[in-house]
């Protein structure tokens, strides 16, 4: 069954890049996007996604706050996609403690045109794992 993905990032560019990367996997479908935590929680109620790709630094409600609230409304799995959250940073630790599947960095190198094969594969791979699909 196709798994539903929600992309949460305040940057339109980032959301576009992430959606493009996800679209390379036929088992995954981006069903919605949100620009901050508040927006994301509303979208979760509406769309019931299987996996949320969540940024940490956002205006309004940030990723960590969103994560804490998400636990009250949905069993949706979360993958943190952020450039603050290098593994070992306080935010990354906090996110992992709150039960996210994995903390990965944002896509890079749109210029090289092979996003999907390079860094992108990381996002697809972890999303598949979060959705309970074979990697």
């Amino acid at each position, binding site marked *: 069954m196709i798994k539903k993905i929600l992309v949460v990032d305040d940057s339109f560019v*980032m959301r*576009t890049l992430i959606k493009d990367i996800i679209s390379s996997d036929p088992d995954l479908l981006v069903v919605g996007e949100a*620009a*901050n935590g508040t927006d994301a929680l509303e979208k979760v109620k509406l769309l019931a996604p299987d996996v949320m790709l969540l940024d940490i*630094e956002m*205006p309004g*409600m940030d990723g960590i706050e969103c994560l804490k609230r998400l636990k009250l*409304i949905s069993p949706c799995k979360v993958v943190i996609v952020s450039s603050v959250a290098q593994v070992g940073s306080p935010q990354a630790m906090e996110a992992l403690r709150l039960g996210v599947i994995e903390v990965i960095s*944002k896509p890079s190198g*749109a210029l090289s045109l092979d996003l999907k094969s390079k860094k992108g594969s990381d996002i697809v791979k972890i999303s598949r794992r979060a959705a309970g699909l074979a990697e």
Partner: protein
Amino acid sequence: MSDFIENIWSQFGMETQEHIEEIELKLVETERSGATSEHVASLFRAFHSLKGLAIAMDLNSFARLAHRAEDILGVIREGAFPLNSDVISLLLDALDEIKVLRRSVVALHSNAEADSQLMEHLAETFSSMEQTVVTREISCETDSATTQHTDPEILSYFFELSREKTAAISCALGILTSELKKATEQEVEELVARVATEIDQLAYAAEAMDFLDLVKILHQLRSALIARSTRDYELPVSLAARLLELHDQLRVIESMCGNSDAGSNTVHTFLGDTVPLNHQAAPAAAADGSTHNAIRIKGESLDNFMNQIGELTLVRSRLNHIIHDDRLHMLITCLKHLKNSNSQDASELLCLAEEHRRELVETDHLLHNSLGRLQEGAVRLRVVPVDMVFKRLPRVVHDLSRSMGKEIRLEVNGQDVKIDKAMVEILMDPLLHMVRNSVDHGIEMPAARTAAGKHTEAVIRVSAIQFGNRIVIEVSDDGAGIDMEKVMLKAVEHGLVMGSRAKPLSKKELLHIIFQPGFSTATGVTETSGRGVGLDVVMNNVTRMGGTLSVDSEHGCGTTFTLHMPLSVAIQDVLLVEASGQTLALPERNVSEVLDVAAEDLLSVRGERGTLLRGAFLSLHRLSDLLGYPASVTTQNSGGSAVVVTNGTDIIGLEVDRVVRREELFVKIVHESVVTLPGVGGASILGNGRVVLILDGEDLLRIARA
């Protein structure tokens, strides 16, 4: 390059621009009124986003630069270091470099190198800051382990959810009991399923919060609901009542607990939970979802759309032209003649022709109306608050006043007034010029201000007001004002005014001189203004866009520049007139009325031609004379039509050969050489494809007075 990548680049351009503008504004605000934690947080976030975007696009030095700034702000965000004016200056420098990089990156779509000295400076600043922080960080680490249910914000989010759910549950159960008799099996089924879902969702949240008693009640409620063997909902309803009661108690506790530990403890005891509490007060959550509903449209697509409407307007005026064409008129006249000679066919033809004409006129009206609405809609699509222009000002004033050693406070009003997006660029130049002019020429040095008994801090006020379809922007300062004597001397010196002129110039006329090419009273050439390219260029550009610029000044008290501009530049209402066989367009905003002047109404008072308009003398001028055209034979002293032109203070009558009709013209931006022609403000194309000059009422008044 693929469309996808192309699109990403253009979005990259937009987003980075937004972040840059926000950073600039916040830095300047911080400099003026001190740093708040919100400002620091949003500055951090903006640099952080710039970094992320740069990484995504493989722009190494752009990313490094933003990263450095982000690091510095990170330390400041932790509260370990103040955001002082040195750091602000450094960050502004970094921002300027980012702007430079951004420009080249957006143009070339590839990495550009950042200034290495600046990078070093940023790195040094960061490392010196960081040393003071290390010790703090270690001491913080231990208490970061707060648990889910102790966070007061999460608690209140839970209350919010539970309020929503309990209300839904009791409402659905209420319906279930009252409608039980009437409802079909399927409807009952659906309602039960809905209640069950709500219960599940609330139970899910309660479980996540470890509120085990609540979970127990909810499970009881759910199984009672599902296990019903008959249509008996007594039990679920009584359970729902208990739930509601529980929720009311929760609400009381919620209001009690606020942020205090005691309150939260009560909640947990009440709900049978014994986990100890040790939360800290969490920062207020700013729900900032204002942007996520917006759709981004490329400026280009919008411009295309507007151009299409412009074209449509041209097509419509062509239709209007055809309807009022002489040929149709002649046809009808001919048919009338024929009809008089008692021809049955002719009278039928006449009926047809007249009906046809009427239909055409109606269609034209309909088209005109819907075109108007379309235009309005389109204009609204591309309106932005004038703040888009104003937000550039704080930085300019900040930099200028710093470099000149003046103390200036900028006050901005009316930034919500909406303008056409295309006006942003058009307004920017004159506005910046006026503000620079104020800082440079208007405002005195602090010492001079003290000597004049003024506060050392000068004020520049920028305000916008909307009048109908025009925007009025005022820039006023409380500086030295314009020295009329100096203006006069300078004007004579530059040969702009004859020294031996009989009557002295009025204040208004003198003030007008400062808009003359090559005029400047500033003694030195400064970085900002006084290079001779001055107000005359601004004036020209403003006029070209259908605006006006005026100035008022009180020596010693200050100067006020007033800029009138249309909210949208694209379409203008004009009155078409004929003079010397040429069709010319007068902007309707300058026209107050049209008079028929009979030969016997003409007066001559002290050699000035004129007539009486409601008892007052109205001076008359031939339009062809004002424009320097050869005089047409027909109007020689025989009266005719006069268009009354005014700018609110002055009023004259323009004699024309014929008043043609009203028109809406799609104004084309024309070459400067056309605009500098006396009396001419622009050009457009008529329905019949002919070019028409759009006159400038202000300029005509000026020529008439001279």
